[in-house]
């Protein structure tokens, strides 16, 4: 079911936590709120779950207003599922009973089969009789997921679902989760501080900063067409290169002149340069010195300094191995030229 937040404001002890939060997750898709800790993303999730009140705005799910400034529907009447960061399995119940816990409105005969189906779906059918303390972190996570999905929630909420798991588990579980959600046709919203998680799972991602939503968009656009410098900074790697926006809209930098993709007033600007915006080309007259390099398997991430001293990144196939201190030729290859008005003072690489 479609989730829609309209101008949601919330405060905690007088301090505003969320400021006019608005976004929409279409039915059957996965949304994500991305933000650092303290950005208000968990509060947003708890508001949607009905665990916290709001001071203004509305939370609408499937056309039904669940929370507004005057009141809220109780959590148990929302038909939502939630996966907590710490999984919050009931320690006194075994795995099967944990999954059955939310099925009390189902006919008794269907409960067990539904729970077993869900356990099979997350690959834990064999562990149904175990207790939570006998499970690994990844297994607990999958039980929590099965439990949340078992009652066929209209909306699934996930709070940093992979934060306590290691990288490998994250990737495999992430994939499994996405397939499971699509198979169940569940609309989902997750909150995380990890862009990898966000990009791997979500169709739409919002960047939340100090209670304000900076951009609600596809992962591609967040990365390549960030709405402001904060988003550009927070999402992905990149450098800002000083330049000048000319009245005709073109941006002049030491790497050359490019047509701007986003509008703006003429004057000094900073151009967002992603690592893949700079291509290694020994034939290029543009030379840069290698300051630092990180081996990434198929690719090598170089930190380079240009003639002006500005630092930029370049992603280069890893068989091109250059020593630190050596020079190499680079060529800009920009599909989108995003420039923000330059802040006072020298530009620094993030």
């Amino acid at each position, binding site marked *: 079911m479609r989730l829609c937040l309209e101008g949601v404001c919330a405060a905690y002890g007088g301090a505003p936590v969320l400021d006019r939060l608005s976004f929409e997750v279409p039915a059957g898709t996965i949304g994500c709120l991305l933000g650092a800790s303290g950005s208000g993303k968990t509060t947003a999730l708890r508001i949607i779950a009905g665990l916290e009140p709001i001071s203004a705005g509305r939370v609408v799910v499937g056309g039904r207003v669940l929370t507004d400034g005057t009141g809220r529907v109780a*959590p148990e009447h929302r038909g939502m599922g939630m996966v907590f960061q710490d999984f919050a399995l*009931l320690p006194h119940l075994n795995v099967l009973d944990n999954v059955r816990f939310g099925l009390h409105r189902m006919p008794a005969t269907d409960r067990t089969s539904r729970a077993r189906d869900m356990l099979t779906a997350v690959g834990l059918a064999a562990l149904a009789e175990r207790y939570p303390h006998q499970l690994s972190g990844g297994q607990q996570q999958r039980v929590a997921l099965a439990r*949340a999905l078992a009652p066929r929630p209209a909306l699934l909420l996930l709070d940093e679902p992979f934060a306590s798991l290691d990288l490998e588990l994250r990737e495999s579980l992430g994939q499994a989760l996405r397939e499971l959600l699509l198979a169940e046709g569940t609309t989902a919203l997750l909150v995380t501080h990890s862009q990898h998680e966000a990009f791997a799972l979500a169709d739409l991602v919002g960047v939340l900063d100090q209670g304000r939503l900076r951009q609600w968009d596809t992962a591609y656009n967040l990365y390549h067409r960030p709405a402001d410098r904060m988003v550009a900074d927070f999402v992905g790697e990149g450098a800002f290169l000083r330049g000048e926006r000319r009245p005709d809209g073109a941006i002049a930098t030491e790497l050359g002149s490019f047509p701007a993709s986003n509008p703006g007033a003429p004057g000094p600007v900073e151009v967002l340069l992603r690592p893949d915006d700079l291509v290694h080309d020994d034939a290029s007259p543009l030379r840069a010195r290698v300051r630092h390099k990180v081996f990434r398997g198929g690719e090598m991430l170089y930190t380079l300094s240009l003639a002006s001293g500005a630092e930029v990144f370049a992603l280069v196939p890893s068989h091109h191995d250059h020593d630190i201190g050596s020079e190499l030729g680079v060529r800009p290859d920009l599909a989108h030229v995003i420039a923000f008005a330059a802040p006072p003072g020298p530009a620094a690489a993030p």
Partner: protein
Amino acid sequence: MATAPPLQPDLGAAKLPARALRGPERGAGWHLVALAIAMPALAVLLVVAAALLRPDGEVWAHLSAHVLPRASWNTLWLVLGVGLGVSVLGTGLAALVALCEFPGRAFFAWALLLPLAVPAYVLATVYIGLFDYAGPLQTLLREHLPGVPGIEVRNRWGVMAVLVLALYPYVYLVVRNALASQGARLMEVARLLGHRPGQAFRRAALPLALPWIGGGTLLAMMETLADFGAVAAFNYDTLTTAIYRTWYGLFSVSGALQIAAVLLLFVLALLALEQRARAGQRFVTLGAAPVQRRRLAPRGAWLATLICGLVWLLAFALPVSQLLLWALREIDSLDRRYWLLAANSLQLALGAALLLPALALTLSWAQRRAPSAAMGWLARLATLGYAMPGALLAVAFFAAAGTLLKVFPDLAGLLRGSILLLLTAYAVRFLAVAATPVNGAALRLKPSIEEAARNLGVSGFRLFLRVHLPLLRGGVLTAALLVFVDVMKEMPITLMTRPFGWDTLAVRIFEFTTEGQWQRAALPALAIVAVGLLPTYWLHRGSEHAPLS
């Protein structure tokens, strides 16, 4: 207690370097440590058990015909009634305070602990004074409604009510902490899974709190078994009064010890049962996420305030006001000696509050390091003293210590005039009070934390000091608080075992009550409450904000 899994992998003894961990040897060491801690209690139990070998036939024949049937029946009623009462009242109040938001919640969170500082015998006397036929309430009733029949409060229900009011904080304290740290979280989970608040509490938070409810209730039940003051004030005959009747009336100490031995067997069975019920449950700690207490609707909120207020009024404000009224009449006798008495009480209570949680921690640690059936029984036996009437325990302790001192006369010189003997006796009596919260907290130590710490090269005592102690802080503080107030109130052991000059406030109460001068005892009773207030508050704060317990 002995539920922690063996955390130390069996590495096998062969080909290990000298400093490697060798399971069995270390196990033996830990068993010795546990044995040393349990030794005074074992000595006392030995004295009690030895009495069984010399049965006094004539006394037993009389007791079993005319005393024990009634006393056992009464005891059963009382223990079950008090157990039910404290578990319902303690859990209910704990749930309100830990899970809900209502006017006065922060105040009640602390204030509902205060009845801990009021000795049960004081509560009993005050209640009989206020509510019995000759008391002001019924007198007023008769004056305004002539012909109204007298209401008898000195019966089973009266003594039950008083003991529930006096003992519910044992349950309240531990359950509140357990619910505050994790219960609210599980309530949220349950509600998101479609359970109404009531169901959510019953099905998610309550099962979580069960081991703590059980532990606290068991403490209250043991204390009820051992209680003499309150049941004597109500002249309600229990096994404890039968014990004293046999001792003081029939002059048969051995007969008294025999009844106690039978009593302790039942308690031991109860302990083993509770242990077994708990054995399957092991708890993994949840992360500390921000959890909001449920804001109650205005009517519910005021009802919650009313309930908490009523309990607080009945269990604390009312008896303390009555004590104040009585004490004001005797205010002239408040002299400098009270400073000395209070200082003695404080020193003994603080000494025990330091010593006993340390012993309980060591015992709990030993059980974790070297779990075995023998270890489990040692730990259980070490806590049995709590179910034994204080004066009888004092006699058994004295007999055991007397034997020891006869064998080692040098020790006598060292111990004479020292409070070491007294503190040891307190340890025998109150170790259960310290062990319950400490073991409860240890139950939730995540094995992974320990593994992580060992991985970082932290092990042995440093592991304990740097990893376990901080995590167990809540349980340890709870233990210290309970021991502190219990020792402040303790009378028979202090009377018998104190060295010259170590009179306490409780001893002062004894001086008056032994001659039936209850009103004059109000001043020292009030002093006990007053001295107990600050530590109660301090420890309350500490245990409420501790990460676990």
